[in-house]
């Protein structure tokens, strides 16, 4: 039969301050000088900070790994994109488009809207209709000499497709054109950075 309850090591430690593990408190004072609530929940501040910073650093390194993966993903996507050469396509007869007018077609695929504008008797330009900011369809304003994106009020100049105002930084995709036998043909797509 046992006379005394079993003694736990923690009971001993609580009686003898010297036996307590050294814990770093925020104010730097020893545990015996800490208020009761802090002694009841003795968080080792130094250790806690070290561990959380170390884990945060690891998280950043893993984030960097994701960035590198994405970087290679873009590289692989470029291999696929680089190989595809769109076929030329007849868009419209020259006389079907009056000077200053814009018509909408799809090129190179059925989901790629483009805008063909006749600037003067012999000058045609065509651009992808999707804004280079966040892909909203741009609206032609030939009377003002520009294409406008209604989403965030981005403007592109009609003659070159370059951004004039608003959030877009890249020019619109340019569609290469050729006029053969009185018919305007789209012959290629030109992505541009500037």
């Amino acid at each position, binding site marked *: 039969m046992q006379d005394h309850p079993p003694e736990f090591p923690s009971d001993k430690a609580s009686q003898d301050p010297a036996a307590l593990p050294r814990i770093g408190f925020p104010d730097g004072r020893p545990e015996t000088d800490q208020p009761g609530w802090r002694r009841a929940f003795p968080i080792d501040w130094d250790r806690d900070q070290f561990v959380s910073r170390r884990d945060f650093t690891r998280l950043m390194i893993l984030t960097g790994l994701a960035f590198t993966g994405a970087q290679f993903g873009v590289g692989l996507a470029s291999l696929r994109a680089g190989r595809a050469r769109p076929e030329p396509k007849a868009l419209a007869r020259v006389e079907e488009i009056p000077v200053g007018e814009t018509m909408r077609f799809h090129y190179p695929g059925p989901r790629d809207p483009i805008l063909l504008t006749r600037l003067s008797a012999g000058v045609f330009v065509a651009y992808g209709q999707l804004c280079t900011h966040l892909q909203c369809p741009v609206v032609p304003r030939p009377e003002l000499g520009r294409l406008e994106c209604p989403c965030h009020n981005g403007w592109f100049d009609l003659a070159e497709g370059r951004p004039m105002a608003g959030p877009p930084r890249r020019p619109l995709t340019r569609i290469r054109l050729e006029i053969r036998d009185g018919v305007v043909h789209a012959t290629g797509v030109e*992505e541009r950075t500037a």
Partner: protein
Amino acid sequence: MSPAEDGHTPDQRRILLDGILFLVGLILMLQLWLLTGTMEAFLGGDLEILWPAALASLACQALNLGLWRCLDQMEPR
């Protein structure tokens, strides 16, 4: 590794950790910059820059993994 084994006091270890944290943050920002630049170039049809940028990002990551190893050898106490 115990403090006696790596020979650093907790304060020294924290300073080392802060240094590593700073470097990793810097490298991460560089990687983010590379990625946004690469995306811009890709969407703009400039494909030449993509692989050099990917290799640069890989080099940054190798550096970061080296720093990770240093971190792994450091224990809080």
